[in-house]
C-alpha cells in the first residue's frame, strides 16, 4: 500500500465517477473533439433519438476530408463535400462549436485543441482518432476511441475504461543538435516494437523531455499509439503554463491562478511505482528513418536496410521480406541510397510552427530535387509561417504550400502518393497504402524530410544544418 501516485493515477482518480466491481470505471470526459469521420457515431445517436449531453464540452473540426487547395471555393468532389456538410449539419443540430472549413482557426484537431487552449493539464480528452494521445503533452489523459464509444461520449459525456498499466519512458541526457522529438519516438518504438507499450499509459520523463518545447512534446505523445500505448503524457511545467497563457479558451485571470495551483500537483510522486520503466540515453539518439511498413521498422540513417536472412525468427524474416517487397528495397543497401520521388511535410505529428521552421532551416536558399507538399497543421500555423516568411522558403525551394488539414497523412481528401511512388514524410504511419494505394512511405523528422527533398534521397540532415541552427 502506497500513497504515492503517478501523474496518470492522479488524473484517473479525478475523473472516476463510478468503479464497477469487474474493474471497469466510468470516467468523466472534459473535452470531446469530433471531425468529419465521426459520422458513424452521429448516425448511431440519431438512431437512438438521443441528443448531445454536453454541447459546451464538444468541439468539431473539419480536417480529415478537407481539400488543401482551392479553399474558399465550393468543394468539387461530391463525396468529400458531403462529409464536410454532414459535420456542419451535426454541429448545427446539436449546438456544438465547429471550426469549419472556412474558419480562420480551422486545422487538424490535435493541433487546434492545444492552440485554442481547449487542451489543459489534468483533463481527460477523447476523440474518434487514435492520435488523441497528442494532447498528453499537457499532462492530459487523451486517447482515441471508436465510433460506438464516440456515440457513448456524445450521449453521456462519460466513458467506460479499464485502468491501463503504467509505464514510464525516461529520456536522460541531451539530444544532439539536429535530432528531434520524432527521433526520440521512433527510437523507443523501434526498440520495443509496435506492441511494446500495448494498452499502457506512458509517462515520458527525463531531462531530454523536460527540455522539449510543447511542439516537441506533442510529437512525442502523438506517436505513443504507434508503440501500441493507450496514451502518452508529460507532466506539465513552466513550459506548459507559458504556452497556455492567453489562449482563447484557456482559463484567464483568477481562474488561471486557481488552475495553476491545481496544475502544479500534476506530477508523479517521488515514490510512485510504474509497472514498467525504460531508460534511454538521449545523447545516443541519431536521426531515424523507417524502411518498412510499420513504425517499428525504424533505424538510424547511417544504417542499412535489414537482411531477412539475419532475422531472429522465421516470422520476423517473413515480415521483413514482405516489407522489402512492398517497399521495393534491397537487403543490405544503405538507407542513404534510397531515392525518393516526393516529400510531404504535414500531419498532427509534425506540422506545427516549430516543425515548419526546422524544415525551412534546411531548405532556405536551396532547391528541392523532387516535388513536395507542405500542409501546415492549422490555418493559424499557416498564417504565422507566412508572417515569418517560411512559405516563401518552401515555394522558392520548389515545394507546394497548401492549406491546413490531414491531407497526405491519410489521403482522404484526395492528396495521395501515386502507386509505386516513394515519399519522405513527416507523418506517423508508413502502413501499406496509408498515403494512397501502393504508396511507399518513409517516416522521419521535418528536417530529415527537407534534407531528402534537397538531395533527392534519404540522408542525414545534420550536415545540411551546419551553421543554421
Amino acid at each position, binding site marked *: 500500500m502506497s500513497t504515492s501516485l503517478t501523474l496518470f493515477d492522479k488524473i484517473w482518480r479525478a475523473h472516476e465517477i463510478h468503479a464497477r466491481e469487474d474493474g471497469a470505471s*466510468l470516467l*468523466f470526459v472534459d473535452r470531446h473533439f469530433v471531425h468529419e469521420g465521426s459520422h458513424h457515431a452521429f*448516425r448511431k445517436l440519431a438512431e437512438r433519438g438521443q441528443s448531445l449531453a454536453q454541447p459546451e464540452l464538444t468541439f468539431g473540426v473539419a480536417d480529415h476530408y478537407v481539400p488543401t487547395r482551392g479553399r474558399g471555393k465550393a468543394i468539387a468532389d461530391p463525396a468529400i463535400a458531403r462529409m464536410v456538410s454532414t459535420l456542419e449539419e451535426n454541429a448545427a443540430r446539436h449546438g456544438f462549436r465547429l471550426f469549419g472549413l472556412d474558419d480562420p482557426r480551422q486545422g487538424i484537431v490535435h493541433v487546434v485543441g492545444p492552440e485554442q487552449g481547449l487542451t489543459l493539464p489534468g483533463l481527460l480528452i477523447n476523440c*474518434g482518432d487514435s492520435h488523441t494521445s497528442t494532447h498528453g503533452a499537457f499532462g492530459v489523459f487523451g486517447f482515441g476511441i471508436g465510433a460506438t464509444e464516440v456515440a457513448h461520449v456524445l450521449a453521456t459525456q462519460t466513458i467506460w475504461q479499464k485502468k491501463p498499466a503504467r509505464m514510464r519512458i525516461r529520456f536522460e541526457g541531451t539530444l544532439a543538435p539536429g535530432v528531434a522529438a520524432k527521433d526520440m519516438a521512433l527510437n523507443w518504438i523501434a526498440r520495443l516494437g509496435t506492441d511494446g507499450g500495448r494498452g499502457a499509459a506512458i509517462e515520458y520523463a527525463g531531462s531530454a523531455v523536460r527540455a522539449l518545447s510543447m511542439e516537441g512534446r506533442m510529437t512525442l505523445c502523438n506517436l505513443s499509439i504507434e508503440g501500441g500505448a493507450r496514451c502518452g503524457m508529460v507532466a506539465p511545467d513552466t513550459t506548459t503554463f507559458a504556452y497556455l497563457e492567453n489562449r482563447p479558451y484557456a482559463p484567464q485571470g483568477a481562474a488561471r491562478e*486557481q488552475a495553476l495551483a491545481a496544475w502544479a500537483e500534476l506530477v508523479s510522486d517521488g515514490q510512485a511505482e510504474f509497472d514498467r520503466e525504460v531508460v534511454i540515453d538521449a545523447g545516443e539518439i541519431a536521426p531515424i528513418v523507417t524502411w518498412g511498413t510499420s513504425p517499428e521498422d525504424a533505424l538510424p540513417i547511417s544504417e542499412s536496410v535489414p537482411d531477412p536472412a539475419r532475422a531472429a525468427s522465421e516470422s520476423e524474416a517473413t515480415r521483413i521480406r514482405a516489407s522489402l517487397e512492398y517497399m521495393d528495397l534491397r537487403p543490405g543497401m544503405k538507407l542513404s541510397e534510397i531515392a525518393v520521388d516526393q516529400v510531404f511535410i504535414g500531419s498532427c505529428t509534425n506540422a506545427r510552427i516549430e516543425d515548419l521552421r526546422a524544415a525551412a532551416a534546411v531548405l532556405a536558399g536551396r532547391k528541392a530535387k523532387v516535388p513536395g507538399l507542405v500542409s501546415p497543421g492549422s490555418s493559424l500555423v499557416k498564417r504565422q509561417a507566412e508572417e515569418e516568411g517560411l512559405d516563401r522558403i518552401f515555394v522558392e525551394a520548389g515545394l507546394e504550400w497548401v492549406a491546413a488539414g490531414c491531407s497526405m497523412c*491519410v489521403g*482522404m481528401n484526395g492528396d495521395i502518393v501515386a502507386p509505386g511512388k516513394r515519399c519522405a514524410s513527416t507523418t506517423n504511419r508508413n502502413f501499406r*497504402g496509408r498515403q494512397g*494505394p501502393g504508396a511507399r512511405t518513409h517516416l522521419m523528422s521535418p528536417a530529415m524530410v527537407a534534407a531528402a527533398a534537397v538531395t533527392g534521397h534519404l540522408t542525414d540532415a545534420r550536415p545540411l544544418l551546419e551553421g543554421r541552427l
Partner: protein
Amino acid sequence: MTGWTRHQGLAVGLPFENVDTDQLIPARFMSAPRSEGYGRFLLHDLRHDANGAPIRDFPLNDPGAEGASVLVARRNFGGGSSREAAVYALADAGFRAVIAPSFGDIFAGNAVNNGLLPARVSEADADALLAATPGDLAVDLEACTITAGERVIGFEIDPVWRTKLINGWDDIDLTRAHAQEITDFIAARRAARPWVWPHGVGS
C-alpha cells in the same frame, strides 16, 4: 448487439504480423454509410491487385475459405487507427472472432463493442492454429477455449470484455443507470475546478 457464448465455424488464416486497420479497410471506403454493408471492403487492397482483380493465392480468396467466421493471425492485429470501420468490415463479412497473439488496443475495444471476439493466444498456439486453416474450430467464451480437432487451446480476454460479449451489453444503457452520479460529479467538478470549463463558453 446480441450476446453469445459459443461459436462454431470455419477458420481462415492470415499468417501476417501487424495487419493494421489501414489494411483491414483502406481509408477511401469509410465515407460509405454502414447500411450498404462493409464486408466487401475487408482487406481490399491486399485481396485485389492494382486492376481490382482478386489475387488468387490470398488466403481469404481461397474457395475453401468461403463462409469463414473466424480469422487467425499473427501479432499486433488491428494496430493503428481508431476506425471502427475495420471491425464493421470484419463483422459484415461474417466474422465473429479473431485469434492472434496481440491486438491493437483500440481495435480490440471496438471489436467487443460489435460482438466480435479478439482472442489472445500464445505465438506457438497461433502458429499451430494457422497450420490447421482453413478448418473448423469452436470458440467457447465461457471456458475461454478454442477447440480445433483434438486440440484445445486456452485464450485470454479481459474479463470485462468477456462479460460484455456474453451479455451483449450496450454501454449507453448501462451508463443510464448512473445518471444521478454523473450529474453529481459534474456539479462537484464544476464547483471545485471551474477552470476546467472552456473560457467564455456557457455559464
